[in-house]
C-alpha cells in the first residue's frame, strides 16, 4: 500500500442536465410536487409582471420627469457643474482602480461607468438633450480611459497623490455644485438640490464622515480615561435610543433655535449633520464588536515590542478590527443610503420626495406603481453595487481566513 498506486484521484461527479434536474428538483416525490406547484405559481406571476412592464406601464412619467428625478430643481443651465463633478469622480475612480488594482475598486469603477451609461440612455430617450447624454457617456468612458491610462502608461502614480486628489475632490465638488462668491459661478442654494443628486450627496457625506467619527467613538468607549469613556457611551446610547426622524427634526427645526439668529445653517447641511451623527453611533457599536474580537495577546505583543497606545491601535488593533466588521458596516451604509429618503420629512426632495412631487401633478395621477418601481430600481442598483464591492473587499482582505 505505498507509492503512486494507492493515490487515487477523487471520484468524478459529472451530472448531465437531466441528472441535475433529477437530483435538484425531482429527487423525491414531495420535491417533485413542490417544484410543480412553484412553477405553476411563478410562471403566471412573471408573465403578468413582464406584460405590465412592457405594455401597460406608463413609463412616460419617468422620462417626462427625468430631470427632476436626477437633479431636482437644480437649474438646468447650471447642470454642467453636476456632470463635471461626476467627471472628477469618474476619473478619480478610474485612476484608483488602475493604481490600487484591487477587485473592490474595479467593481466600483465598473458600476460607476455602467450606471452613467444607463443614465445616458435614459437621458437620451427622455429628451434631456445631446449635451447631457454626451456628458454622461463621456464620463462613463473616462472611467475606463483613466483606468487604462494608468495601467499602461503611468503605473508610477503615487498612492499618496491619489489619496490627496480624493481629499481635494470633496471641497472642489462642493464649491462647484454650490457656487462661490467671487467666481463666475452663480450660487445654487442647496434647497434647489434634489433627486438622485441629493440622495447621492447625503449618502456619500454620511458614509465618509460617520465612519471616522464612529471609529473614534468606539475607541473612546473603550478608553481607560473615565470621562472619555462616559461621554462616548452616553453619546452612543443616546443616539441609538432615538429614531433618525427625530434627529432630522431636531437638526432642521430645533437647531436654529439654539443658534444665534445671524448664524444660518443650510438645510441640506443640517440633514447631512443629522445623518452623520446618527450613523456614527451605529458605526461605533459595529467597530466595538470588532475591537472586542481582537485577542488581548495582540495588544500585549504590540506593547512588548514597544509600540505605544496610539501605535498599537493604529497598526495592530484597528486594521484587524475594521476588517472584521466590513460586512456589518456595509450593511449599515446600505441602510444609511435608504434612510436618506427620510429627509423628505424635513422638506428636502431627494429621490423619493421628488417621486411624490411628480405624482402630485394631475397628468400623472395613478402612476404610483411606475414611479415607485423606478425609484426602487435605482435604489437597488446603488445598494447592490455597495454589497458587491464589499464582497470583493472581504475577499481581498481575507475576512474569515486570517
Amino acid at each position, binding site marked *: 500500500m505505498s507509492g503512486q498506486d494507492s493515490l487515487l484521484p477523487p471520484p468524478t461527479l459529472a451530472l448531465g442536465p437531466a441528472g441535475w434536474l433529477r437530483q435538484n428538483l425531482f429527487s423525491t416525490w414531495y420535491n417533485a410536487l413542490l417544484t410543480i406547484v412553484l412553477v405553476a405559481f411563478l410562471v403566471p406571476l412573471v408573465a403578468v409582471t413582464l406584460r405590465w412592464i412592457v405594455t401597460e406601464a406608463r413609463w412616460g412619467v419617468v422620462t417626462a420627469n427625468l430631470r427632476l428625478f436626477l437633479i431636482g430643481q437644480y437649474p438646468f443651465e447650471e447642470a454642467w457643474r453636476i456632470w463635471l463633478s461626476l467627471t472628477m469622480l469618474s476619473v478619480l475612480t478610474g485612476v484608483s482602480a488602475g493604481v490600487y488594482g484591487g477587485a473592490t475598486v474595479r467593481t466600483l469603477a465598473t458600476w460607476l461607468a455602467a450606471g452613467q451609461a444607463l443614465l445616458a440612455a435614459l437621458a437620451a430617450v427622455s429628451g434631456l438633450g445631446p449635451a447631457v447624454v454626451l456628458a454622461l457617456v463621456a464620463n462613463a468612458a473616462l472611467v475606463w480611459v483613466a483606468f487604462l491610462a494608468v495601467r499602461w502608461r503611468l503605473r508610477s502614480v503615487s498612492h499618496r497623490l491619489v489619496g490627496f486628489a480624493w481629499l481635494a475632490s470633496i471641497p472642489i465638488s462642493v464649491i462647484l455644485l454650490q457656487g462661490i462668491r467671487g467666481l463666475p459661478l452663480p450660487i445654487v442654494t442647496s434647497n434647489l438640490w434634489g433627486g438622485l443628486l441629493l440622495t447621492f450627496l447625503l449618502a456619500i457625506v454620511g458614509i465618509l464622515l460617520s465612519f471616522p467619527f464612529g471609529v473614534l467613538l468606539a475607541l473612546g468607549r473603550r478608553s481607560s480615561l473615565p470621562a472619555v469613556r462616559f461621554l462616548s457611551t452616553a453619546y452612543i446610547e443616546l443616539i441609538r435610543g432615538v429614531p433618525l426622524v427625530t434627529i432630522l427634526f431636531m437638526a432642521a427645526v430645533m437647531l436654529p433655535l439654539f443658534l444665534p439668529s445671524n448664524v444660518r445653517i443650510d438645510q441640506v447641511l443640517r440633514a447631512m449633520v443629522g445623518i452623520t451623527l446618527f450613523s456614527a453611533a451605529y458605526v461605533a457599536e459595529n467597530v466595538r464588536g470588532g475591537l472586542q474580537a481582537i485577542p488581548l*495577546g*495582540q495588544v500585549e*505583543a504590540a506593547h512588548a*515590542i*514597544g509600540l505605544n497606545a496610539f501605535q498599537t491601535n493604529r*497598526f495592530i488593533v484597528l486594521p*484587524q478590527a475594521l476588517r472584521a466588521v466590513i460586512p456589518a458596516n456595509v450593511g449599515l451604509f446600505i441602510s444609511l443610503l435608504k434612510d436618506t429618503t427620510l429627509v423628505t420629512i424635513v422638506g428636502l426632495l431627494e429621490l423619493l420626495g421628488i417621486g411624490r412631487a411628480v405624482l402630485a401633478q394631475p397628468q400623472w395621477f395613478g402612476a404610483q406603481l411606475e414611479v415607485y418601481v423606478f425609484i426602487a430600481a435605482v435604489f437597488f442598483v446603488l445598494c447592490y453595487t455597495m454589497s458587491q464591492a464589499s464582497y470583493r473587499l472581504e475577499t481581498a482582505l481575507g475576512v474569515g481566513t486570517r
Partner: protein
Amino acid sequence: MSDHLDHAGPAAGIIVCRDVHKWFGDLHVLRGIDMTVKAGEVVVIFGPSGSGKSTFIRTINRLEEHQRGEIFVDGIELTNDIRNIAAIRSEIGMVFQQFNLFPHLTALQNVTLGPIRVRKLRRDRAEQQGMDLLERVGIPEQAHKYPAQLSGGQQQRVAIARALAMQPKIMLFDEPTSALDPEMISEVLDVMRELAVSGMTMLCVTHEMGFARAVADRMVLFDEGLIVEEGPPSQIFEAPAQARTRQFLSQILH
C-alpha cells in the same frame, strides 16, 4: 528565605526584583519574589500551573503591574512613569505561549514593525535586518507568508525574530513550546539554545527539562507565588534541597 539578596542593589544585576507582590482581585498570586539576574545569565523558571511564574515574568516588562516591591531593569526602576515603561520595554524582548503574531502582517512585516515604528529605522534597513533575523531563526523563505500559512514552530520562530529585531538586552520566554505539536518543539528550542550561547540574558518559563539541563545557568521553582528553591541544574536535578522540588520533578519527569 530571601535573605541572600538583601545586599543586592540596582547595579548588582540587569534585572533586580525585591519583594514583588501581585494580587488578582483577592488572589495573592505573587507573595514576595526576590530575584536578581546577571547580564548573560539564562534562568529557567518552572513550577506547577497557577504558581505565578508567568505572572512574574510578565511584571518585568509591565504586561502585569506589580503592587508592592520594586523591579529594576538595567538600572531603570519600573514605575507608573510611562517613559520608564517604554525605556524598559525597549530593552526586553518577549515570546508568548500563543505566539501572538500579527495575523494581518507577513512574517517580515511582523519583524520590521517595531524597528520601523519605534526605532524609526529606515524601511530598507529594517527589512535587511529582518531578513537577517529570519535567516538566523532558519525561515528566510517564509518571509512573505502570513502567520496563518506557517506551522506553529515556524510562527514561534518568527515571534522570536520579531522580539530580537528590537535588539533587546533581555529575552523573556513565557512557555514558548507549550502550544506546539511535539515534532516542532525542538526547532524552537534549537533557536533558543543558539540565543543562550550567544550570551543573551534569558528568563524562560518552561517545562522542557532537557533544555533546562543543557542551557540554564540557574533553575527556579515557583509554587503558590513563592520561590521554593533555586540553584544550578545539577543541584536541582541531582540534589534538590526541598521535598517540594523532588515531588514536582518526579511528577513532570514521570
